[in-house]
């Protein structure tokens, strides 16, 4: 028995985990599941671990390289020397930051597909099914 997205078909515990359904006064008649229970579930914790494992190092990496590049070109002339012909190193590093952006985006797209799967499984465990976005 799946929970309807509009929240009107809630009949007692619906999965093995069981959803505690309680009304939320601030939002009128809508009923919500116990989010703290989902938050504590193995599936969700695992998802957050995996996300952090990718996002924190990746963010540190790109912000670090970006700042380092700007500090180096502002305070030193280390990158002014030519690498090949008359092309200075600074252009190579600048293009490197472009390449870094495209690579990280591509890697993230792959990772995120996994996150999606994990999120779906976690939600499924709690009887939630993705339906048409209602607005």
């Amino acid at each position, binding site marked *: 028995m799946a929970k309807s997205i509009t929240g009107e078909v809630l009949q007692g515990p619906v999965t093995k985990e069981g959803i505690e359904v309680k009304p939320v006064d601030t939002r009128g008649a809508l009923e919500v599941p116990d989010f703290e229970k989902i938050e504590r579930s193995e599936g969700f914790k695992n998802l957050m671990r995996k996300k952090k494992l990718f996002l924190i190092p990746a963010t540190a990496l*790109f912000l670090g390289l970006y700042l380092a590049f700007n500090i180096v070109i502002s305070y030193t002339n280390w990158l002014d020397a030519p690498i090949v012909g008359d092309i200075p190193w600074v252009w190579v590093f600048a293009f490197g930051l472009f390449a870094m952006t495209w690579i990280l985006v591509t890697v993230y797209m792959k990772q995120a597909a996994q996150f999606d799967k994990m999120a779906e499984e976690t939600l499924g465990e709690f009887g939630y099914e993705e339906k048409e976005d209602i607005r």
Partner: protein
Amino acid sequence: MNATVIIIFLVIVAMTLVITYFAAKRTNSASDFYTAGGGLTGWQNGMAIAGDYLSAASFLGIAGAIALFGFDGFLFSIGYLVAYLVVLFVVAEPLRNLGKYTLADMINARFNAKKVRGAAALSSITIVIFYMIAQLVGAGALIQLLFGIDYIWAVLLVGIMMTIYVLFGGMTATSWVQIIKAVLLMLGTVILSFLVLKNFNFNIMEMFTQMKTATPHGEAYLKPGVKYEIPLDTISLMLALVLGTAGLPHILMRFFTVRDAKTARSSVMWATWIVGIFYVMTIFLGFGAAAFVGADLITSTNPAGNMAAPLLAQALGGDVLMSFISAVAFATILAVVAGLVLTGASAFAHDIYGQIIKKGKATERQQMLAARYASVGVSVFSILLAIFAQSLNVAFLVSLAFCIAASANLPVIVYTIFWKKFNTAGAVSAILTGLISALVLVSVSPSVLSPEVGAAIFTGTPLFPLTNPAIISIPLGFIGGFVGTLVSREIDAKKFAEVKVRANTGGFKQL
């Protein structure tokens, strides 16, 4: 102004009006109006994001800056592109999962407090106004040059067109104008790049060798330091660019026009490729303009270098290409200002009128009416401001908008998604500290106060040494949110659990 330019110009205007006509038929609810019903696909929205981002300032400004200052002209592009990683990793998906029409919606998914919504709407409106004046002033000056009409008429022309798109076609029309413009802009840039490379015999090495002697800067042209000489100022500015994009309301709004986080993500991917490839091509445009048009002619036509790309088109492709590039620039301006009007209107009509005054109980009809009144209001207000702001420096206004976005919006977004103890007082104080510190520091900076008469808006001694205060105001925004949170001590772990689950899984959107 010749016949070709008029014909190409009229074709583009007619095309956008046809789009608006069809979009108007499909705009029947507030959701249609603000977010095109959330029905855009990944590549469509990616093109529209790229379209929003590649304003006339990017297209004409960066090409001109590279032509005049070489590597330093290109520097901005690096910040503008890397910024998309912040958007992708931090804001895009939670925003889609938690919000409805505006940034304030997303923050209020956690707090549901009028003062938080009010503060978020205030910072959005401030950013939109600065960005809008920059675009309109730039547009006015540009159209004056391209078509030889007066500044006031140019601003009015752009102003009326943008109002028509938004008023009748809402987000559907705005998005499709944006998509078509992105295609035209890429097409024009590819043609110009091809012609430039052809003139360098398709040899990048040869291009760099020639550029070493082609400009008055000599060898320095290919190295940093021609334009930006104060290290800390450069770093502060680059910080504003990389962190500001993730707080720009008109970019954030684009994540509500897709159905889910997955599509939001793929639209960022599309945008990153389009924007990145475009920026690489601006190098060819800039170098080409410097080599084949020459710095003297570029600066004598427009001191800021904004005419470099059209002049290059004239030099390499004659009148027809020049007309095409000018018309593309015009379409670019229209599309970007339409997106800004819509964003400003959503903050007024949805956040302030619909949610704060009407407490979320406005009927569909009232919401639509409010949205349309607000669009007209925002348009008229910004047209009037632009007419009086003709002499303001466009680049300064844009960098200020990025700085406020990074200082006022980014801290509150990050805290809302990641910090369990964050609370209502913290949210208000994060937004206001970032907003006020950015504004105050800029108002006493060398951009506003200069001892030299006429060099800045006022004559006087600057009290703050940097032209862009991001390096101070961004940390202040974060500190403001931190201190505000600790002072009030209220904490709602249950609500954070909900926000965390919803932001990270995309479930329970209806709540």
